[in-house]
Each structure stands twice: as structure tokens, then as C-alpha cells.
């Protein structure tokens, strides 16, 4: 390869990707070109340096990040078998069961201590029901009357506030 022609991108990449032990004729021919072409050698060197810096910085960053982290591995112990082997899981489950049983019992106990409708004597309850029933009947009757009347209630003439006394002449002398 003459020095008049420079390496193509693909050839530069082949050199970049080749391992140092690669002694294939193609790679050797490209290496020979680098010895005689400063521009290609400089280009490859620049690429290698940039990629080297990138690799070094990324590795250092990863090492630093990893070092600052403790290896708490919930994932490694989260298989179903190991999950059910944890004592804390069983304790929590027992506590939840106890609460599930105790809460309804406690509520029932609480309702027994404070009498409600259920604890009112039977006769008193019957009289209350009777009052309610009468009230309902009266209300229904009133609605029936309103509906069956020829003039609806809003159209009825207003009651005379003077109770018919407006036509009479007041003969009593006024006192100023």
C-alpha cells in the first residue's frame, strides 16, 4: 500500500478492532502502511487514545460507584422458598390473623355495651312504629286533598289579614 493513499475508515477500524496478537496478512499490510504514513498513524493513535480514556474513565466511575454501595441483595434471597423461611414473615402473618379475628370480636363487644335500637323494649318499639305509621298516613291524606282540590293551593286567595274589618268606619277619635 503506497503512502499516497490513506487508510479507509473500515481499514482504520480493522486495525482498531484487531488484537495485538493478530498477525493475519491483511492486518500486517495495514500495520506496514502506518509505519510509512504519519497521518494515518496519528489518526489511529488519536482514536485509540480517546477510546482508552473513555474506557478508563468509565471503569473508574463504575468502580467508585460500586465501592460506595453495599451489597444488599433482596433479589438473591427473594426466591419463594427462602421467602417463607423468614421468621419475620410468619410472625407478621400470625399478627395479621390475630387482628383479623380480634377486630370483629371487639366491635361486637362494643355494640353490646352501648344499647341501640335492638335493645329497646318491644312495646316501646311498637308504639314508635305506630306513630311513624300515623304520620305517614296523615301526610298521604294531605297530598291527596291538594291534588283533588279544584284550585291548587298556590292559587288559593290569600287570607284576609284584617278579618273583614276594613269596610267598617272607625269612629273612635284619634289622639295626637
Amino acid at each position, binding site marked *: 500500500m503506497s503512502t499516497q493513499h490513506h487508510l479507509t*475508515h*473500515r481499514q*482504520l*477500524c480493522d486495525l*482498531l*478492532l484487531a*488484537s495485538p496478537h493478530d498477525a493475519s496478512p491483511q492486518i500486517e499490510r495495514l500495520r506496514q502502511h502506518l509505519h510509512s504514513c504519519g497521518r494515518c498513524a496519528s489518526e489511529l493513535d488519536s*482514536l485509540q*487514545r*480517546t*477510546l482508552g*480514556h*473513555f*474506557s*478508563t*474513565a*468509565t*471503569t*473508574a*466511575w*463504575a*468502580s*467508585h*460507584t*460500586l465501592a460506595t*454501595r453495599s*451489597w*444488599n*441483595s*433482596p*433479589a*438473591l*434471597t*427473594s*426466591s419463594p*422458598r*427462602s421467602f417463607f*423461611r423468614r421468621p419475620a414473615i410468619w410472625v407478621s402473618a400470625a399478627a395479621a390473623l390475630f387482628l383479623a379475628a380480634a377486630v370483629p370480636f371487639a366491635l361486637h363487644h362494643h355494640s353490646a355495651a352501648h344499647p341501640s335500637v335492638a335493645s329497646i323494649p318491644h312495646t316501646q318499639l311498637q308504639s314508635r312504629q305506630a306513630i311513624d305509621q300515623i304520620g305517614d298516613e296523615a301526610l298521604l291524606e294531605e297530598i291527596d286533598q291538594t291534588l283533588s282540590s279544584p284550585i291548587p293551593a298556590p292559587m288559593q286567595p290569600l287570607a284576609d289579614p284584617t278579618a273583614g274589618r276594613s269596610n267598617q268606619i272607625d269612629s273612635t277619635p284619634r289622639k295626637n
Partner: protein
Amino acid sequence: MSTKALATNLLAEEPPASAIPTPFDDLAVVIDTYRPRIFRFLLASLRDPDLAETFTQETFLRAWNSRAAFRGDCSVPTWLTRIALNLVRDHTGTHRFRFWRKAAVRSVDAAEIASFLPHPDSLVESRLIAAEQVTLLWQVVSTLSDRQRTIFLLRFVDEMDLTEIASATGIPLSTVKSHLYRALAHIRKRYDEATRKAL
């Protein structure tokens, strides 16, 4: 809890899946040896330390659960990388992960990565140039396609050879090369543009 203790717990809880010995039988050693490498790849891919750590743990969990399927056709790190890649791919397909990924890309400062570049004896000017190069490359890599970025990182961060990358990704060797050519062309183009602007 130490890695060894975790591995010991896991080994105590789970009976061996098969009588055939596998490299994963000594899980503590496997984790100690390959955890930094898997974490580094996942961190470079995802740019999210929390997610990278979660996926690293998940990688070893999956490797342990499917250790009976390991036949030694590839090396242990290649197999682990394949698992890690599958995890990344699974999550890349979801909208939620896309949101996370975008958020992570925004939150990671490229200059911060460049600050990790060791310069024991170099000049200030050389340091600045190197830091600029890393910053630029970090930004350009984020613009590569998922596949190009994965292959690029496996080659230039994990330093895997091309046959290993082909094995880990399940992509033919010629396609792996094509992706690297394209990725490097994109990087060189952006690098030239940035250099011209600087001049």
C-alpha cells in the same frame, strides 16, 4: 451482608439443580470475580447506578437459577453478559423504562465521568483535552442506537473480543463488525465536528 454470606445462604437454601458440577457451584467466587464487570457494563449501558445494581443482582440470581443450563459452550463472563443483556433488552421495551432511561441520561453529567480519569503525572493541558474527549464521547455514545451502543460498550469498555460479543449478543460476527464500523464512523464524525468548532 457480605457477598460470601449471601452466596452461602443461597447455597444452603437451594439444593443443587443437577449433579453435574458447574462454575456457579461456588457462587461467592463467581460474584466476587464478575460483579464489577457486569455492574460496569450495566452502568455504562443504563447510566443509572440504582438500576445497574438491581440488574447486577438479578443477573446473578438468574445465573444461579438456570445454572443447570450452563454447558460451558461459552465462558462464564460471556454467559453472565448474555443474561445482563437480556435484562436490559426486556426493560428497554417498556415505556416506563424509556422514561427512566431518558431521566437517567439527563441526570448523569458527562463531565463528572471525565473527572474519574486518572492523570498521575500529565500536564494540565493534557488533562483538559482528555476530559473533553471523554465528555464528548460519553455524549456521542448516548446517541448511538441501542444495538450499536451495546456492542460498542462490550468492545471498548468490557474489552471483549468480537467472537465473545457475537456469542453474548447472539448476533453474527459480520453484523457485530458492521455495527462497530457504523458506531465508530458516527463517533469520528462528531469528533471531527467538535474539533473544527474548537479551532
